Each structure stands twice: as structure tokens, then as C-alpha cells.
């Protein structure tokens, strides 16, 4: 990227400004995500940096909004913080319950999406698959079709079939939304998959099941796990379908955030946002490590 020594002044100026522009765009990408982290420690209920915060005065910072996440919705938030207080948090705190629901729904929809999606990806990546393109287009479409249309359709369908207001309904809907991600990541891992390995296994007397679990599975596992993580994030972040088909008491984290933003936006939302940002950093790291591992396993070296 470095400029050759014979570059003219104009080119040098342009190159410098190009780098500055790129820097600004990177700032635009990342700043909004990082800005919530310091703001969530604001001692005041404001959404901006107070003077105390800017002068790094410790009294300008507090963890009161994180505390509110625990106490909001509790029966006796004022009690001493012993084991019964924590039991109260676990049973009644609104955000904790939302997190429990989100994890339950996320776990089962991820499981469903990953198992079905991986099997389908194995079939779709075989060259002899009939109607490959058309079927692939149908299976990917939940990612493309606007979520409001999916949610509206599910609302009509679930109220007719009696799946409305149930966990099963939400799990099925979220699995559908996560499936495209599983298919895309797993088929990407299967590109360049050396089929002579499975033939060799069969040749050495392995049954198809043994071949799958001993040969295929370890090779595609990184792709499967990143697909599963994508599916989990999709479910964990989904609010529209939940708003349309879930019962009123089925709160999830995004739904609770949505309500919080629409009604009275409090800095507690920012502390949830900070926690979610940290989770996404962890997920991104995991996926990145998996991707490199998969490249190494398949012998595809990065260009």
C-alpha cells in the first residue's frame, strides 16, 4: 500500500487524505458501539458525558444501572444481600427472567437449526442433489424476506394452528430465521471438502455412520459451530417475531430493551447494551478462531 518514492505531491496528499477518510469511516463503524460502555457507568440518569465523567472524577461513575438490572422487578430489593436476596433476583428480577427466556429460546432454536441445517448442507453440497438451486433459494429466503412479513405471516398461521403464545412457536420461528446462517457457513466449509477421505474410510470398512462421525464431522465442525453461533445470535437478538407471536409474559432481552427504549429510555438499557457488546466481542473472537482452525484443517491457507 505504500506509495512509490516517485509519487507526485498530489498523489502523496491524496494518499494521506485517503487514509484519513478510511480512519473516519472506521471510527463511524466502531464508535457508536464503544460509546455505550463508558456511558453505562454514568452516575446521573443522562445519556451524555457529564463534566465529572470528563474530568475522570470517580464520583461521576457508578454501577447503579447494573444494580438496577438485578433489582428491577424484585419483591424486596431493599433487603440485605444474602442468599434469599439472590433467590429473589433469580425468581423475580425482570431482566434476569428475560435473560432466562432468551437463553432457553436461543438454545432450542439453535439446536433445531443446527441439526437440520447441517444435514441439509451436507445434502446440498453434493453435486447430484436435484433442484439444488431452487431448494437453496427457498431455504435461504428467511434471511432475505423482511422480518415484518415473516412475523405477520407467522401471526396468522400460529393463531390458526394454536401455536401462538407458546414457547414452541417462538422456538420454531427463531430456528427458521437461524437456518440460512447455518446453511451458508456449513456449505462454505464443505467447499473444497476432500471426498476421497470419506471414500477411503468406506474402503477401510467404516459404515456410513462411522464415516460421518469420525471423518466428516471433525472436518466440518468449525463451520457447524460458527453456524450455530450465528443462529444463536439471530435468536438472541430477534424482537419482531417475539412481539407478534409470543405471549405477554414471555419477555426476552430484546423485547425488554424494545419496551424500555419505546417507553422510558433509562441508562439501564445502556448497561444491558454493554453486556451484549461484550458477549458479541467474545462470539466474534470464537468465530474468528474457528475460521482459522477450519482453514488449517482443510489446508486452505489464507492468501
Amino acid at each position, binding site marked *: *500500500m505504500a506509495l512509490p518514492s516517485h509519487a507526485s505531491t498530489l498523489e502523496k496528499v491524496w494518499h494521506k487524505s*485517503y487514509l484519513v*477518510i*478510511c480512519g473516519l*469511516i*472506521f471510527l*463511524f463503524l466502531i464508535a*457508536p*458501539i464503544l*460509546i*455505550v460502555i463508558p456511558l453505562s457507568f454514568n452516575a446521573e440518569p443522562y445519556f*451524555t458525558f457529564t463534566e465529572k465523567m470528563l474530568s475522570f472524577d470517580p464520583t461521576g461513575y457508578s454501577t447503579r444501572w447494573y444494580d438496577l438490572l438485578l433489582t428491577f422487578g424484585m419483591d424486596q430489593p431493599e433487603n440485605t444481600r444474602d442468599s434469599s436476596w439472590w433467590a429473589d433476583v433469580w425468581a423475580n428480577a425482570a431482566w434476569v427472567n428475560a435473560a432466562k427466556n432468551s437463553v432457553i429460546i436461543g438454545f432450542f432454536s439453535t439446536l*433445531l437449526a443446527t441439526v*437440520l441445517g447441517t*444435514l*441439509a448442507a451436507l*445434502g446440498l453440497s*453434493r453435486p*447430484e*442433489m*436435484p433442484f439444488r*438451486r431452487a*431448494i*437453496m*433459494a*427457498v*431455504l435461504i429466503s428467511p434471511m*432475505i*424476506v*423482511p*422480518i*415484518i*412479513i*415473516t412475523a*405477520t*405471516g407467522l401471526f*396468522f398461521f400460529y393463531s*390458526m394452528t394454536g401455536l401462538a403464545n407458546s414457547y414452541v412457536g417462538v422456538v*420454531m420461528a427463531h*430456528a*427458521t430465521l437461524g437456518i440460512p446462517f447455518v446453511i451458508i457457513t456449513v*456449505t*462454505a466449509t464443505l467447499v473444497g471438502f476432500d471426498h476421497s477421505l470419506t471414500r477411503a474410510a468406506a474402503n477401510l470398512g467404516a459404515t456410513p455412520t462411522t464415516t460421518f462421525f469420525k471423518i466428516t464431522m471433525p472436518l466440518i465442525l468449525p463451520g457447524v459451530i460458527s453456524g450455530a453461533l450465528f443462529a444463536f*445470535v439471530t435468536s438472541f437478538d430477534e*424482537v*419482531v417475531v417475539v412481539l*407478534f407471536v409470543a405471549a405477554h409474559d414471555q419477555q426476552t432481552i430484546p423485547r425488554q*430493551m*424494545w419496551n424500555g*427504549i419505546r417507553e422510558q*429510555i433509562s441508562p439501564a438499557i*445502556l448497561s444491558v*447494551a454493554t453486556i*451484549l*457488546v461484550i458477549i*458479541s*466481542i467474545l*462470539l*466474534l473472537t470464537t468465530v474468528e478462531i474457528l475460521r482459522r482452525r477450519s482453514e488449517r484443517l482443510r489446508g486452505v491457507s489464507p*492468501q
Partner: protein
Amino acid sequence: MSDAPADMSLMSPAQDAGRLTTKDGRPLKAALAAAEAQAKRKAFFLVLPLFLFVLITFVAPIGQLLHRSINNPGFTTHTDISSGTKTPIMVNIRDWFDANPAGTPPDEAAYEALAKDLVVLRELKAPGIVGTRINYERSGSRSLFTKTARKAAKLEPPYTEALLDIDEDWGDPQLWSVMRGASSAYTLNFYLAALDLTRDETGEIVSVNENRQVYVKLFTRTLVLSLLITFVCFVLAYPVAHLLATLPLRYSNLLMIFVLLPFWTSLLVRTTSWMVLLQSQGVVNDALVATGTIADDSRIQMMYNQTGTIIAMTHILLPFMILPLYSVMRPINPSYVRAARSLGATSWTAFRRIYFPQTIPGIGAGALLVFILAVGYYITPALVGGADGQLISNLIAFHMTKSLNWSLAAALAALLLGGVLVLYWLYDRLVGIDNLKLG
């Protein structure tokens, strides 16, 4: 195997010396075909469970939505909520509509049929539901139905005068036109409404009153804003993707985090961040005031309007533009540009004639993807859009949750879906969904 003789199985390998056979005596061709068919079946059965699952949880609901957009039994069938029994309603007046062509002014027979039907409605406790159905297309009709149905049992002939006595709106030709439209459960009237069209007294399709035209305007706005966002995304993504593609891999992998982290961060978190930044008491305005760029009393309104929608959506969709551009730019051989330069091209000409044309596939892929995602956006406009930053999705949600005109919501959704599917088909043709990459 059309060339294989029918009694192939009877032939011994010796007789069939010219043919290759497998060990068990089958001709090789047949054995191969059988093996291929088996492989095909195997692949198909791997995909089948998921395909059925998606049919049930996705295709069927969409089908139901499309059905809803052309079917509204509000004027024809009453469903009892507790028992679920369906009763045909408005039978007499529907018969009259069938017997008389569109545009016939209502006569005494029509009013008599109407009065009889209203009595039935009253017994079923359904005047409100039927009135709501008519109210979708002619406001004020709900109260007209409930009010008249209360007195329906006591009505005496001549029914024309009796009904007009209760409310002279019963003589309104538009009301009769709407009722005629609703007299069949299957109707395209919701699509007409979604396109700001209506039927006049004689059944002709005309535009609705100018101050009630909202939907076409909103479709246009959705289109214009999506195009604008796509363009802004392209302008911002191109230099970044170029930088990432030309840097050595160890640096670009690091910088890639800046692109992928937003991608992995919750949509609601990103929208919240923008609300925090753009509020009139928010970080951006505070910074501008602190640096003296603007006065404290003239803080810029950047949220709850189109500006907020554009900024937040650009940020959210930018990675979808950067990633396809990057994957197209990475393998571009830098020696082409160098060759152009050494042949005397200025750096601008070399970029314009050599580099840029090679990146067009990436631009197409990214722009289509961003545009497809932008036209259907709901969450961000709903939270930061205010009144004039709303898109068509928000209106669908409004009709689903507030006005409860589900058939109109379904018709709007079907129109949006049609547009998105055309773009999706285009994307598949031009880019191929197999090439969709996630990070």
C-alpha cells in the same frame, strides 16, 4: 438404457462379450445409473427434513398472509369466538347484490334485505365486526351499523324510509359500493387500498382523495431512502474495502474487527447507541456545543426524523457492503494497475479504466444485498424514525397492531414481498446465493 435389450437379465456374460458388466452380471451402465439414482436419493433425503420444516414454519405462513390479503370474511361469515362455529351472515343483501349489477341504486328490496340481515347480526352480537369491515373502506360505518342494528328488530316497511330515518348515510352510494365490494369474501379491494385506489359508486377504479393518499407516498419514500442508504453505504464502503484488500493480511485481519464487530452486535444495541449519540441532549450535540460549532439553543435535531433513520441504517448495513466488496477486491492482481501506470496512465485513469471495472461484481452484490435489507427494515425506523422517517414495514406493523386492518396489512406486505422476491431472484441470477458470505 434405451439401447439395452429387454431380456438383458437372461443373457450370460459370455453371450454379451461386447458389453462391460459388473460382477453380478448387470451391465455397467445400469449399475451406474442405479448408483447415481441412489446418491441422488441420499442427497435429497438429507435435505428433506429441513425443507419440510421451512415449508411449515415459513412458506405456509407466507401463504396464509397472501390468502389473508385477498380474503376477508368480515361481511360474509361470522365466527363465534368461544365455540368457533361459522354462520353465514348478510345473506339477503348479498343475494340482492348478486341479482343486481354494480351501479344499481338501492331499491326497497335492497333496504328490506338489509334490515333483515341487521336483525340476524343483532342476534349474533356481530354488528360491530361487520361495521368494522365496512369501516376499513368508509370511515364512520362502524357506528352506523351498531346504531342501526340496535333498532333493526323494530323496523317496519317501507324499509327505505325507516333506515334513512335512523341515519341518512344509508343512502350514501359510496357505502353501497363498499358493501358490494365486501359482499364477496374474496376481493382485490385491499390491494386497491394499498395502492391508494378505490372503487366509486359504479364500481370503476379511481384514485382516493388526495389528502388520504398515504401508501404510494410511503412506498416511494421507502424506495428513495433505501436507494440513498445504499448509495451512502457504497461511498463509505469502497475506500474501506480497498484499504482492507490492499493491506498485508496481518493488518487487514486486525482492521476487519472494526467491520465484523458491528456485524455481531445486537441491532437494538446499535440503534440504542445512535439514539444516545444523536439526541438533542446527546453526545454529538454536546460535543458540537462544547467546541462552539453550534449555539446551545440551536441544537441539531438529528433523531426522530429521516436523518436519524438514514444515519443509523447506514451504520447497520455498512458491513453488508464492505464484505462483498472486500472479497472481490482481495484477489485483484495489483500488477494490472501497475502495468497501466507504466503504459502512461495517470493514477485516476488507471483506477477508472482498470481497477474499478474489476470491482463491479462486488458493487452489484453489495448494493443489491443492502437494498434488499433496507426496503424491509422495521426496527430502526420504528425507534429513531419519528414521523417522517417511517418506512413501509412500519405501516404494516401499524395496521397489524393498532388499526387491526389485517387484510390491508397483508396486502401491503404482499406488495413489499413481491418487490423483495424480484430483487432476490436478481441477486441469485447475478451473484448466486452460494456466494453469500458472512465474515
